[in-house]
Every structure is written in C-alpha cells, then in structure tokens.
C-alpha cells in the first residue's frame, strides 16, 4: 500500500486507486460530481481538484483532478490549501450559474449531492449577473421525472444509462452551456434500469416520479433495510415510509449483490403496498357470499374451531412468503399436510436446482462474481425479464476483455473513458440460447432462439464438446454443432466461465444440460447460476421435506373430501395450476382460509380471509437464487388488523398447540426453530442481526435525526404525541434516537452522514470506497460448493419437429407484468403489456394474422384471446406467450396450442 501525503499528513492508500478514492476512503471530504464508484472517472466536473507537488521542495504545485490522478508512493497533495480550495469554489460557482433556486420545490432537496457539495465548498454569494439558461423538460414515462433546468452537466446520466446499462435512448445533445440530457423526443425510457438515474443524478434532473407525485423529504422518511421481492435475486433495498404509505424504494448497498443499482421492477414495484384494495381486516364469508369484517380474536377463534382436534387440516405455503411464515405453517399442520405452494412441475424444477446447487461442485456466484465472469453461456433465459439485475451484472461481465486490454497498457480500471476507447467493441464472450431474442443480444457474441428441447440438446452438445466422456448429441444440425464447439471453446479458454440457466423454460433438461456443462469445465473458478421465479423459491425448496405431499396429492385429497380446512399462505393458486383444477381444490376443501397481503382470486374463494403485512411492514428471511439468506425488516407498522403472516400463524399455534408454539414468542425464536428443524437452513439466523443486537447499547433508528412533524402527524386526531411503538422483534427502533455510524450492512435503513445528505454518503459506511460495508456484508450464503457428487445426465431430448396444427407456447416473461406483486404498483402497471402472443412471420402468415390482431389460443380446456405481436426471433413451430401477465390464462408447461384469428379481427 503506497503512502501519499495530503496537506502533509501521510495516508496509506490502496494500490491502484485514484486520489479521490483514496481521499474518500481515508475519510476526507473531497467534493466530486462526475466520478461514481461503479462507473469510474472521466474528469468532467473538475470538482475534486487538488494541488499536486513534485516533491517536498515544490511550493507551487499544479492543479490536478483527484479522480484522474493515480496514487503513487510519496505523492504529495494539498486539499485544503488556498489554490485547491479556490479552484473548487470556482467550479461550484460555475455549476450554479444556471442552476435554478428551486430547492424548496425540488424532489431532490434534502438529499441533493449538489446541495451538499455547495455547502461543503462554502459557495454562498452569487456574483454572476447573467441570465440563466433554461430547457424544456421531457415526458420520460411513469417512472422518472425530468427537470432539465437543474442539470449541472456532470454526464453521469448518459454514462450510466448508455455506457453502464446499455441504453440507447438517452443522450447528451447540443453543446457548450446548452448540453441537453434527454431523449430524442418525449417518450418512455426504454431501459429496464432507468430508475437508477434517480440515484445516479447528483441533483434533481431525474427524480422518482411516483415519489414526486406523493412527496416526502428524505429526512421525513421512516426507513428500514429490506430485500426486494420482485424476483429471486434478493437485491437489497431501503424502503421509506411516511403516513403509513410506502413512499419509495432506494438501493441499499451490498457489494456482493446489487452493488449500487436496482432494476425498475424492484425500485417501483413495491408500491403495491399502498394499493387500497389490500385487505385491512379479517373477513368471514357470510351467507350472501360477502365478507364480514371481524375482530382479530374472533378470527383466531374461528380458526381454532376449523383447525381443532379431529379436523383434517392441510396447508399450502408460498415461495413469496418468508421462511418463518412457511415454517410456522408447516409446524402448525405437520409436514405430511404441508405443501410449499408450487405445482408439481415447478416444485420438481426447484428441487432439481436445489440438488444441483448443493452437489454440483460449482460455485453459485454472487452478482459481484458474475460481473467478473470472462465467458458466459445462457441457456433458456431472457435474463433481463426473469432476473433483471443479473442482466445488468452480465453487461459488466462482457467488459472483462476491456479490463484485460487495459491492464496490458497499464491503464487503471477506473479510467472509464480510456478503457472503453481502448476496447471499443471487443468483449468477453457471452453466448445466449433462449426462446426468443433477449435484451442482452446487443452485447452477445452469439444468440439463437430455440424450443426448450433444442436448447437442452445444444447444451448437452456443449457439455459433450468439453467432456468427451459425455454422450455426443448425434442428430444435431451441423451449424448447431459448430456453435456448440465455439461455445465450448470460449468457456474452456476463460478463467472464470459462467453458465446461466433457470426455470423460465420450464424444462428440466435445460437445467440439467447447464449443470452438465458446468461440471464438464475444469476451472476452479467456474460458476453456475440459476434464475428462479420468486423471492423465496429457493428458500421453500430448501425447506421442503421428502414427506411433503405434492400439489397434485393435495388436490386429490381435497377432491376426495379428505381436507376439512385448507390454509393458504400468501399464494394465488390460480397462478400455479389450471383454473379448473384450482377451482376444484378450493371448492372441495371444506373451509378455505387465505392469509395474504393482497387480494387475489384465491382469497376471493376463502371462507376466512386474513390480512397479512407486506414485505414493507414485516420481518422475514428470504433465500435468494444465490442461496443467500437475507433478512428484511419492517419500515412501518401495518395498518388495522394486518400483521405479519408469521404473527397470525404464531397466534393460531398458541391457541391450538400451546406446547409447541409458546416457546416461540418472538420472530427470532421462529427463525431459530426453523434453522434447527431444517439442516439446509441451519445458518439462517446469521442472515441479519437479531432483535437483541445493539450498537453501544442502542438500537438502530429508522428515522433520521431531522425527522420532522412527528407530533403533528396525528394532530388532526389528537394533539398528544402518542408513544412511539416498541419493536420487540428487530434491532430497529421507530425513533430518531439510537446508534449512528458503522453498522452491519443488513442494518442500513438509510444512508446519511454529517455533510452528506444524499445517497453518496454510502461511502461513509464502506470499509473503503466501493468496498464492502464496514460492519459486514448483508446476508449469509447457505450453499458453498461441495465436493462434486457423481451425476448422470438426463436422456437426450428428441429433436423438436414443428407441427402445423399446433404451436408450442414458449413462456416469455416480462419485467413489468410477469411478477404478481409489482404489477399491482400503479407506475409499473402503466408499463404492463396486455396478454400477447408472439409469432414469427411464417407462422403469422400461415395463420393469416398480423401485428396487433387478436388471436384465440386453445389448449386443454382453456381458450383465451390475446394480441398478436410479430417477432421473427421466435423459433419455427413455436409461439411466445406473455407469461403470467395480468389477465393472461395460466400456461401449463409444454403447452401446444391451436391458434386462430379472433372473430371481428383486430378491432376487438
């Protein structure tokens, strides 16, 4: 570690850093704008200037930019000297020439990096007498609000949006002091990661539109560390609340997981929590088939009656509910009566994935490791739509080649522009074989779309090319054979190859082929990652027990009248199985009790509906697709009778089986019991600090120091300030008082440091800039690669032959719409497409269908009408089906449907 001198003080700094990084890591407040820890340096804003001296004798020195200057042993700088300070002050004054004085009405106010830096530099008096430049704002869609006059032209937005996230519709336009950052014309930002502009922009040009429309200042938000429930990646989030409403979700830094960025489903999808249709009270269905709101105790008494001695009770858990809730439900009804909440096919896929992760001998990478992969092969997934944040990580992985080239020329990795210029279009190989085109195709070395059977066959061919002890795929077309060879060669010659597959193709063979490829690789740093459907899919798969009845077994029992009471936990069964079979299950099951935080079709079939708390109002543990157990904490107390599902279940248990449930009074007790009962989950208590955790004897406050108006919030009801609620289940407190400073990454409700009101303050919590949170990275990995056990591959799939009569409906997921909860958030709902089918031109022509027409799909006893989209990436004999979109019929695996034009054509 070199030593540098700043204002004559020696600092040991990390080798290879730039001086700005070194200063920030050393705790010095050097202002900056354009530099970003994940995006490196370009030297645009000139704010991080210091004076560098040649040696001890040099008293003049010269201005250098901290972000553009590598650290070097013995290098001497002045940060506080008059020249450096005056220069930085001039920069701020220049940036403020055209900046409007609209902080009071700006959504960034109070967490504005520009405000912070202006104060830090001490610019108070304006001497510029000219007029301010103004710009027209653009409509950028429902997620991001645009206010261009505030721009200080730091270029972070385009560098993030285009260079980092691969967007193409946001650009720096114009020149000199009229540079304009926007789209070529008004319109919805196309990138699925556009929301990060809100956090990347150092001022209020790009702000969170749903927040702007229902605004609260950062200092007035009560926040909690949370985990995104939008997909299985488990991105860490910070949920902010005011007046009982979720106001916004921000990124919570986790160096191994989401780093600095979220996807837009994660950032904006949480607003379903504010949906007024969410149940508030326990509801008991009356004679008129309507629900009567009942008291909590009456609900529990009813449950006690329905689940008491002699009643045959079964329960269905949920991959979107916490481990604790699932575990308590299982404990309540017994393993032999508990199903994880997935239909047989999905459960089998998850069980297969779990088995492979545990015994394949291959690392399941964190997103951080994904970013460093130097050859990637994706089988069957459109990652942007099934595990969105992973796609952003993969976009970084293809830059491994660029960093290799830069290392040869000794260009530091943070020299962003220089590294990009050097590498241009040279990328590490990314090969994609999916069911249609994907949003990563633009950075892929090769892309192809096939049916799941053919994807699996190609995968096995790649495995066979890597390991000649594996059976060759005989009847593979020659172009596919050479593609397989190319992919195998790229994977073989990489240092950190990564194979990605998942459940999206609903194919066990695709998953098996991916695992076979990973096993066939010889590198120690080889990686295998699976995209999984829901926030706790892997968690419930790990909780699963061999004695558990399958979904079809439960259905059989119900249809045979063997279930008196069926408990359904946070699960809409109509998204799991065909409508007719779910209807039969629920109809024949005696009493159906549904616990959920949202109103679903399943809840509408219940005899008793219990309102549960959402992720924002409850604590729980989720296991991500990386097998990382992570804890989320409530940001606010749930309204009325809503309470965490585990609370309902605990109360039921205490009433029904006091001996088994009384020892579990608190959340941590349940986590511990789950860990004890399930060896695969034995470490979940380490997912986050427990309720007894204290920092210097203090809990962690959810409210910032400057939280205002707490006494006034309820003054329209009562002028007395109520006692703040006591949180017995977490180490967080509903107060402004408590521990500040360093804490575990799992306990960062919000980031703030003196002088750093914006999210840039996160570096104050890092061990070094861009490094792990100094209190420890959130979450615990439950599966580390074990000695590989011997595997045999599944028998090869037959060649898929297209049929004229029916088309194979391939499930196409959508970031906006395919996820149950986020699609209920109003801003996301605006972006959800209606149910659709994608046909290639050949199929469309044969069926006499055109773009925008409506088509009738028929399979089994399902008939549904969807809109036609033409997409020539769809393989022959197949059609893409918009999976799980609101209003779309549930699609069973391996569905082959007949397709006809809807009556009345396209004006339906």
């Amino acid at each position, binding site marked *: 570690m070199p030593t540098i001198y700043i204002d004559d003080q020696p600092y040991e700094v990390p080798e290879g850093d730039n001086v700005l990084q070194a200063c920030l890591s050393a705790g010095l407040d050097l202002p900056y704008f354009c530099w970003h820890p994940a995006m490196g340096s370009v030297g*645009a804003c*000139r704010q991080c200037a210091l004076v560098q001296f040649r040696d001890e004798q040099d008293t003049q020195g010269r201005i250098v930019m901290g972000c553009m200057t590598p650290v070097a042993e013995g290098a001497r700088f002045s940060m506080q000297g008059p020249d450096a300070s005056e220069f930085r002050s001039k920069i701020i004054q220049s940036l403020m020439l055209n900046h409007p004085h609209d902080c009071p009405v700006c959504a960034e106010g109070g967490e504005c990096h520009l405000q912070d830096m202006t104060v830090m530099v001490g610019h108070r008096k304006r001497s510029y007498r000219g007029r301010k430049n103004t710009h027209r704002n653009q409509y950028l869609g429902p997620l991001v609000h645009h206010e261009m006059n505030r721009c200080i032209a730091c270029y972070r937005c385009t560098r993030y949006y285009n260079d980092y996230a691969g967007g193409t519709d946001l650009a720096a336009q114009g020149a*000199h002091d*009229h540079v304009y950052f926007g789209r070529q014309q008004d319109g919805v930002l196309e990138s699925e990661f556009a929301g990060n502009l809100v956090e990347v922009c150092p001022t209020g040009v790009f702000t969170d539109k749903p927040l702007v429309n229902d605004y609260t200042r950062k200092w007035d938000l009560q926040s909690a560390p949370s985990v995104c429930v939008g997909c299985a990646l488990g991105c860490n989030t910070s949920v902010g609340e005011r007046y009982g409403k979720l106001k916004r979700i921000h990124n919570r830094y986790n160096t191994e997981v989401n780093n600095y960025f979220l996807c837009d489903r994660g950032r904006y999808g949480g607003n379903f929590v504010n949906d007024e249709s969410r149940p508030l009270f326990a509801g008991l269905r009356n004679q008129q088939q309507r629900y009567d709101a009942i008291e909590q105790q009456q609900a529990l008494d009813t449950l006690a009656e329905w689940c008491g001695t002699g009643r045959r009770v079964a329960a269905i858990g949920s991959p979107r509910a916490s481990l604790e809730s699932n575990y308590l439900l299982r404990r309540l009804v017994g393993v032999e009566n508990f199903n994880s909440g997935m239909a047989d096919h999905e459960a089998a896929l998850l069980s297969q994935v779990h088995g492979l992760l545990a015994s394949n001998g291959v690392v399941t990478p964190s997103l951080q490791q994904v970013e460093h992969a130097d050859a990637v092969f994706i089988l069957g997934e459109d990652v942007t739509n099934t595990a969105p944040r992973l796609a952003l990580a993969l976009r970084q992985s293809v830059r491994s080649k660029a960093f290799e080239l830069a290392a040869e020329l000794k260009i530091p990795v943070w020299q962003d522009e*220089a590294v990009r*210029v050097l590498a241009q279009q040279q990328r590490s190989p990314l090969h994609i074989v999916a069911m249609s085109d994907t949003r990563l195709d633009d950075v892929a070395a090769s892309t192809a779309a096939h049916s799941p059977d053919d994807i699996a066959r190609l995968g096995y061919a790649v495995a066979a090319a890597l390991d000649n002890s594996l059976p060759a795929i005989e009847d593979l077309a020659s172009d596919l054979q050479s593609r397989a060879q190319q992919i195998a060669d790229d994977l073989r010659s990489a240092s950190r190859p990564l194979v990605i597959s998942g459940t999206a193709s609903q194919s066990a063979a695709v998953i098996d082929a991916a695992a076979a490829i990973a096993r066939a690789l010889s590198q120690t740093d080889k990686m295998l990652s699976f995209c999984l459907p829901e926030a706790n899919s892997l968690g419930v798969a790990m909780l699963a027990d061999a004695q558990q009845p399958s979904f079809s077994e439960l259905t059989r029992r119900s249809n045979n009248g063997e279930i008196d009471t069926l408990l359904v936990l946070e699960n809409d069964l109509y998204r799991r199985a065909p409508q007719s079979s779910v209807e039969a299950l629920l109809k024949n099951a005696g009493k159906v009790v549904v616990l959920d935080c949202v109103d679903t079709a399943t809840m509408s079939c219940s005899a008793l509906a219990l309102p549960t708390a959402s992720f924002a109002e409850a604590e729980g543990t989720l296991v991500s697709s990386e097998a990382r157990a992570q804890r989320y904490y409530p940001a606010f107390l749930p309204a009325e009778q809503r309470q965490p599902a585990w609370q309902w279940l605990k109360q039921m248990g205490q009433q029904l089986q006091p001996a088994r449930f009384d020892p579990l009074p608190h959340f941590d007790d349940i986590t511990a019991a789950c860990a004890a009962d399930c060896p695969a989950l034995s470490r979940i208590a380490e997912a986050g600090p427990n309720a007894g955790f204290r920092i210097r004897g203090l809990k962690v406050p959810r409210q910032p120091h400057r939280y205002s108006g707490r006494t006034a919030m309820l003054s329209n009801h009562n002028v007395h300030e109520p006692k703040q609620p006591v949180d017995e289940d977490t180490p967080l407190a509903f107060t402004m008082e408590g521990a500040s400073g360093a804490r575990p990454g799992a306990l960062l409700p919000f980031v703030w440091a003196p002088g750093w009101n914006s999210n840039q303050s996160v570096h104050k919590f890092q061990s070094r800039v861009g490094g792990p949170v100094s209190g420890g990275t959130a979450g615990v990995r439950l599966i580390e690669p074990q000695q590989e056990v011997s595997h045999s591959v599944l028998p090869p799939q037959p060649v898929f032959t297209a049929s004229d009569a029916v088309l194979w409906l391939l499930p196409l997921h959508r970031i906006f719409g395919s996820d149950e909860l986020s699609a209920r958030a109003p801003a996301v709902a605006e972006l959800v497409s209606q149910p659709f089918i994608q046909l290639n031109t050949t199929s469309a022509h044969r069926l006499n269908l055109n773009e925008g027409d409506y088509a009738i799909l028929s399979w089994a006893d399902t008939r549904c009408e969807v809109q036609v989209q033409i997409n020539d990436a769809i393989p022959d004999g197949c059609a893409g089906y918009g999976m799980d979109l609101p209003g779309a019929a549930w699609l069973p695996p391996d569905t082959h449907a007949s397709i006809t034009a809807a009556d009345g054509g396209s004006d339906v």
Partner: protein
Amino acid sequence: MSDRPLTININAARDATDINGYEATGGYQALRKVLAQMSPADCLTAVKDSGLRGRGGAGFPTGMKWSFVPMDNVSPGHKYLICNADEMEPGTFKDRLLLECDPHQLIEGMIISAYTIQADVAYIFIRHEYHLAIKLLKQAIADCHARGYLGDNIQGSGFNLQMYVHSSAGRYICGEETALISSLEGKRANPRAKPPFPQVSGLWGRPTIVNNVETLCNIPHILKHGGEWFQNLGIGADAGTKLFGVSGRVKNPGCWELPMGTPIRELIEEHAGGMQDGYQLKGFLPGGASTDFLVPEHLDLAMDYDVIGKAGSRLGTGTMIILDDQTCPVGMVKNLIDFFAQESCGFCTPCRDGLPWSGQVLGDIDSGNGIPADLKTLQQQVKFIGAIGNTHCALAPGAMEPLQSALKYFADDFQQHIDGKACPYCDTPAVAMEA
C-alpha cells in the same frame, strides 16, 4: 532545391497542381526513395534529425510524437494516421492554401508518414467548409490509386495504405486531436483525457498519429533533402520554413512561406505592407485567436516557438491577427471569448460554464455596465480556466490567452470602459476580425 519547399507548386494565379504537375517538380520521388531504400526506422530518424515541430499550434517535435507508436507488432491490428485539416482557429488560413493549391504534397507526406509508423489506414479530417479542398483531395487520392501510390503493395514495396477524406461536421473542438478522433468514431466531439495518448490508444482504440496539414507537407521535403538541409532552412533556433499569415487592418493581408525565425516586423511591415493608412498597430495575436497578445515592442522578435513563448505568447499557427488603435480591445476579446464559449464541447465545467461567465462580464464592461469588481473577476477567471490541467483539454486555456494578455497590455482600456460607463471606441464599430 528550393528554400521555399512548401510553396514550390503554389501560384495564386493558377489552379491547383495536379498529379502530373506535382510529379513534374519532383513529386513522389521522396516516396519512391523511401519505399525503395529506407526502413520505417530510417524515416523516423530522418524526421527526428530534421527538428520538425508540429505546425498545428503546439509545436511538439514530430519525430518524438511518432516514436511513441508501438512498432513491435505484438498487438496486431490497424494503426492509423490522421491528417488534421480541420482548420478552424480564427484568423488562420494557412492549411487551406496548402490543401487548395497542392493536395499531392500533403498526400505524399501522409504516405511517407504512414509508412514510418506502419499505419495501414489514413484519414484526412477536413473542415466542412473547405469544399474545394475536399474535391481536390478526393481526386488526388483517386489519381494516386491509379499510379500505385495508394492501395495495396504500393510501388511494389509490400506496404499497403488506404486513405479517406472525412469532412467534419464543423466544430472548432474537432481540431483538438482526441476530439477529432471521437468525432471520427461517430461520437460526440469530446476530447479525451490523456494518458493514454492516441499514439497508444487512439482511433478505435488503436495506435494513432494525428498531424497538422502543414506538418505532413514538410515530410516529403525532409525525406528528399535530409534533416540537415531542413535545419538550415530556418534562420533562428527552429528548423524549416513555415507559412505565416496576417489579417487585420494591414495593407496587404495574406499568407507567405518564410524561414522559421523570421522577425515579426518583416512579416507585418514588409510582406503585409504595414498598417493601413490612418491606423496604428496596437497589438497582435501572433498565432491565431488562442494566443496571447503581443504589442509593438515585440516586433523584432524572431518567429521561433521558444522565442515567442518567452515573450509570453505562443507562435501557434503563425497566422497573426492585428489589433489596430481604433478597434476596442475589450470588444475584440469579448468576440473571441464568445467564439470559444460557443465552441466548447460542454464536457468540463471551467470551459462550459466559465467561458460564458467571462463572456458575460466582458459584455457588461464593453456595453458600459461593468463594475470595478469585474476586473478582479476576470483575473480570477484567467487563473481558474487558464492553466492546462484545470480543464479537460486545451480549448479553454487557449481562450484565456487573449483575455489575460489584454488585461495586462490594455488595462487602461478596460478601466476607461468601467469608469466612463461606455465604450471609448464606440464611434468605431467593434469589428476586429476582418481580414
């Protein structure tokens, strides 16, 4: 052996020299000699020995610049030579003369230069408004292909070179070599941070040399006659001849090839014919709009890079803009600053926002709305923007040069504007840029 090699084929009364005319006066003999007898290393030595310094304005030794290009071929791929013909420095019109009168001189220079660095692709990045030159260059390149001076296996040497003319979209900043490269790649014409230098990672991330038109035009003569001959062309410290120009209220504005080291007085008083009747010389920008003013006391200085540098300015492009005694220096500087502010790429703060700020202050002073504190503001701006390293590229520091020297030499004029709350030259329209 002419002592005015650059203009040997240039005659204002004639059309441009075509390939026949060029060959008739010894054209392409240097290229034939190089390809037949010299290795790239020999050529580099010759150019180094000649003491040739870049004629684009910065005066960097050409041979040294070329020597940074990796020649080991460990990283196979293209190397590029780019001719910077984006002549947009206000008051500068020397490259235009070379381009419009003798395009083959440039092309021969480029082929030899490309051979020296073993570039296989060359671009002429040319100012959009130079329509005639673009036409002539395209014709010249076609003629070269026909005679085997361009294309594959040039003159049987095994050396290949493709050459393209790229017409710029017209931004001053494209004259900055890294901005030029960005523009050529189809990106915003933003300059790039150095290091890495273009010699290592330039166009498309490959080793690239960018040279000014006039620099490249010198190459055939150096290779033909040798470095010593070239050294001896200069009459002062620097080697060779150079095109010098004069614009402003002189009797005979124009452009002449003169030995390096020629006294300024000779250029202005003899070649340009001295000031127009009724006008006195008040000052001049010796090398284009982005150089510091010099004043009559400097007239006897030799036009050498270091001599002008020691006097506090830069030789720059060697094309002088004359300030006469009836033109307002404040107005002239404001005009210049407004130009540079307009031409800022908008990337770094001091340039993007600092130049308009300076322009606003100058505008207020010029229109009689200045206040005494404005002079301090301008001094601060000069310090803030004026040093290389404070900004992303050299545009804004260049823009500060006329301002800082005007504040020094014409302080009284600034003071009069502020004290009198009006422009003392208001009877004379403030048009300083007429050639």
